[in-house]
């Protein structure tokens, strides 16, 4: 999502994901400290869609990510309709969302790993709510 944003909106025409090898401007790079298979505390931005979904400002999530937004281009997460929706304890961006879209959420953690029968993850429940609000008929 951030690479698409960088390519098509933020004007980084050679935006790249470091996982695919060298070349271009790396927008997503290897984290200094890998968060592979860890539980993290996430601070949710005030007034964000994510805050509305969670009903909380601080949540615990599980992550399998080794990559994150490159510090050099961190500004693009708060530009061209995108905004930072959550950060972790180190200040790294952990979630983004679009302000000009009904439901466009990206996480650098895996909410599905915290979902359970009878207790769906709020992001997945919110996705279906948004889907039915748009479905014709």
């Amino acid at each position, binding site marked *: 999502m951030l690479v698409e944003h960088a390519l098509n909106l933020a004007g980084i025409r050679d935006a790249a994901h470091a996982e695919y090898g060298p070349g271009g401007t790396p927008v997503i790079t290897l984290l200094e400290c890998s968060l592979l298979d860890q539980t993290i505390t996430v601070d949710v931005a005030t007034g964000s869609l994510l805050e509305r979904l969670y009903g909380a400002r601080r949540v615990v999530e599980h992550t399998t990510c080794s990559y994150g937004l490159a510090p050099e281009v961190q500004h693009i997460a708060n530009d061209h309709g995108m905004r930072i929706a959550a950060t972790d304890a180190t200040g790294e961006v952990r979630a983004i969302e679009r302000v000009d879209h009904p*439901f466009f959420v990206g996480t650098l953690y895996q909410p599905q*790993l915290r979902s359970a029968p009878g207790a769906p993850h709020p992001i997945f429940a919110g996705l279906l709510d948004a889907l039915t609000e748009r479905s014709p008929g």
Partner: protein
Amino acid sequence: MRPVVNVLIDLPADHPYHRATLAALGHASEHRRIPIEVQVVPTDTIRDAARLATDGSAVIIGPGSPYRDPDAANAVVREARERNVPLVGT
């Protein structure tokens, strides 16, 4: 007709994150009483990104990069963004 959720994921069906993604959709569907049709879409099978981000559908960009066809995944993200189709990327 049930709304469609297109799940872009390249991990094998028995991978824990693949299973968790589909299970999470099932939990939400059951809890909200919103019947859905889930389509698993490996990125290297995408021929027309616009067909995966139509009115009445939603998109999940699943875990497990690197994707086999990252350009196709980006194209679907762009379609969803431009058409206001609900999208979650994990």
